[in-house]
């Protein structure tokens, strides 16, 4: 992985023009809002992800969707990352000082190649791919995001799991100083997620190190996060410091927090409702250019598709499994 110094890149080079203009608009709006009466819920004039290093040698992928990606603004200001707070704007507000380098990942459990590895050494042997994926949150909203990363299957192979390894378990950094949201007991820390070995070696999941061709912003899970496009967003764990090859199914964070609402599988499924809301439809996130009432009325929900539309690649993983029970 080659990382260019950020100094010689103009913002107009690293994002599409639309996004660049969006950011300008955002700055103007923020400046205006500063003088208004009610400032409590106005965004601060921090430009999320400004001047991030561009990733080199990224190749396109056949798994990418041709749907229009969400703006850089949407992707970097509307996040669920409770390590930095529970509101959508908390992660980018509270993660700006987070320093994601140096970073190492501890690999443990039933594998030949265990130990602690520098992130660069994990990434180096692989080619970075851009994967434009739909992301469906369990809260019934969705986005389209151009991630940059490495197929999880290649990384799993690199650690040579033993046949006794049935699950791959991931853990997020647990550091209350660097991740202020962890001072609150909103979830049990560290955040834990997992996949079956068959899911982890499917070609779709990636370990992402970037988005929009740039190094991953802190609020999106820098420097290393999982992306599992056919499962609800909470499966795609951020800020990974540990990968464990396990014989047993892990108890994941959301399962521990509300076992009747969030399960281990968490496959996107329009037919199985969340106990408190329907999963049949979703709102595609998007602050339309210009705003106004018209854009609000055009924001109608769209139907949710089984496995988030990735059924051709993953449905066979669940043959014979009752998806209503194993939600």
């Amino acid at each position, binding site marked *: 992985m080659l990382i260019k110094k950020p100094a010689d890149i103009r913002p107009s080079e690293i994002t599409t023009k639309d996004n660049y203009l969006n950011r300008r608009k955002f700055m103007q709006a923020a400046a205006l809002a500063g003088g208004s009466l*009610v400032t409590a819920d*106005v965004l601060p004039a921090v430009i999320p992800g400004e001047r991030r290093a561009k990733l080199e040698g990224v190749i396109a992928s056949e798994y990418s969707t041709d749907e229009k990606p969400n703006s850089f*603004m949407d992707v970097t200001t509307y996040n669920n990352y409770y390590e930095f707070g*529970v509101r*959508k704007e908390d992660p980018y507000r509270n993660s700006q000082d987070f320093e994601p380098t140096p970073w190492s990942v501890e690999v443990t459990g039933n594998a030949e190649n265990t130990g602690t590895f520098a992130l660069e050494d994990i990434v180096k042997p692989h080619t970075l791919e851009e994967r434009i994926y739909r992301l469906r949150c369990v809260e019934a909203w969705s986005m389209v995001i151009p991630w940059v990363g490495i197929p999880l299957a290649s990384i799993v192979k690199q650690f040579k799991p033993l046949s006794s390894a049935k699950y791959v378990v991931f853990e997020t950094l647990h550091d209350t100083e660097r991740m202020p949201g962890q001072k609150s007991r*909103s979830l049990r820390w560290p955040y834990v997620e997992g996949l079956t070995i068959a899911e982890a070696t499917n070609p779709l999941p990636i370990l992402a190190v970037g988005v929009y061709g740039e190094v991953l912003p802190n609020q999106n899970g820098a420097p290393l996060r999982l992306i599992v496009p056919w499962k609800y967003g909470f499966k795609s764990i951020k800020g990974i410091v540990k990968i464990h090859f396990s014989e047993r199914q892990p108890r994941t964070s959301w399962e521990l927090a509300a076992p009747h609402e969030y399960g281990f599988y968490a496959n996107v499924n329009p037919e199985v409702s969340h106990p*408190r*809301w329907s999963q049949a439809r979703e709102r595609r996130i998007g602050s339309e250019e210009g705003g106004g009432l018209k854009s609000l009325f055009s924001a109608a929900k769209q139907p949710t598709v089984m496995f988030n539309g990735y059924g051709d690649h993953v449905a066979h993983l669940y043959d014979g499994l009752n998806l209503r029970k194993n939600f």
Partner: protein
Amino acid sequence: MDNLRQIRFIWKPVVFLVCLIPAFHAAGDVYGITGDLGANPVENLQDRFGNWGLRFLIITLAISPFRLRSGWNWLARFRRMLGLFAFFYVLMHFLTWLLLDQGLYLSAIIEDIAKRPFITIGFAAFVILLSLAVTSTAGMRRRLGRRWQKLHNWIYVAAILGVWHYWWQVKLDVSDPAIYASALAVLLLYRIWYRYKNPRKKSLAK
């Protein structure tokens, strides 16, 4: 100008305009003048209107205890307006859900009201506030006589359902609904205590 006229022609219009600030702010954000609605505009509007509805409900319920403690009887003159603003913001919250969130998709709306308990109780609170709003005029008050006060005591039920609705809707972190719940609990306990101390008075509202 005497006090009554001063309240009617100066202070009521002033309070009215102040109460409209959240609505103007929302409109300004819709058009990108005072800020913006962020990545999820519908959710942003729905949440802020819902929050203002709860805030105005609590302010309305706080008027009488505050009047009794302070002796500022003129406060009672603002109670109906504040209550109607609570209804106005709850109505905006409801309309945002109905028109923007659900897009008038009838089967989903009916399913939500029938099958999702937090929406059921939110809807119940809305219906209560609607009936209080339409009977809030002086004429209605006269016509309903004694029954009017009985009907309008339902504001407590609406407030409890409203806070419960918020509490139930939150995914995990209940710190915000807990603030409303504590404020409401203090106001309700004060009323119970007041009735206990003054058994001859029917209600502290009058």
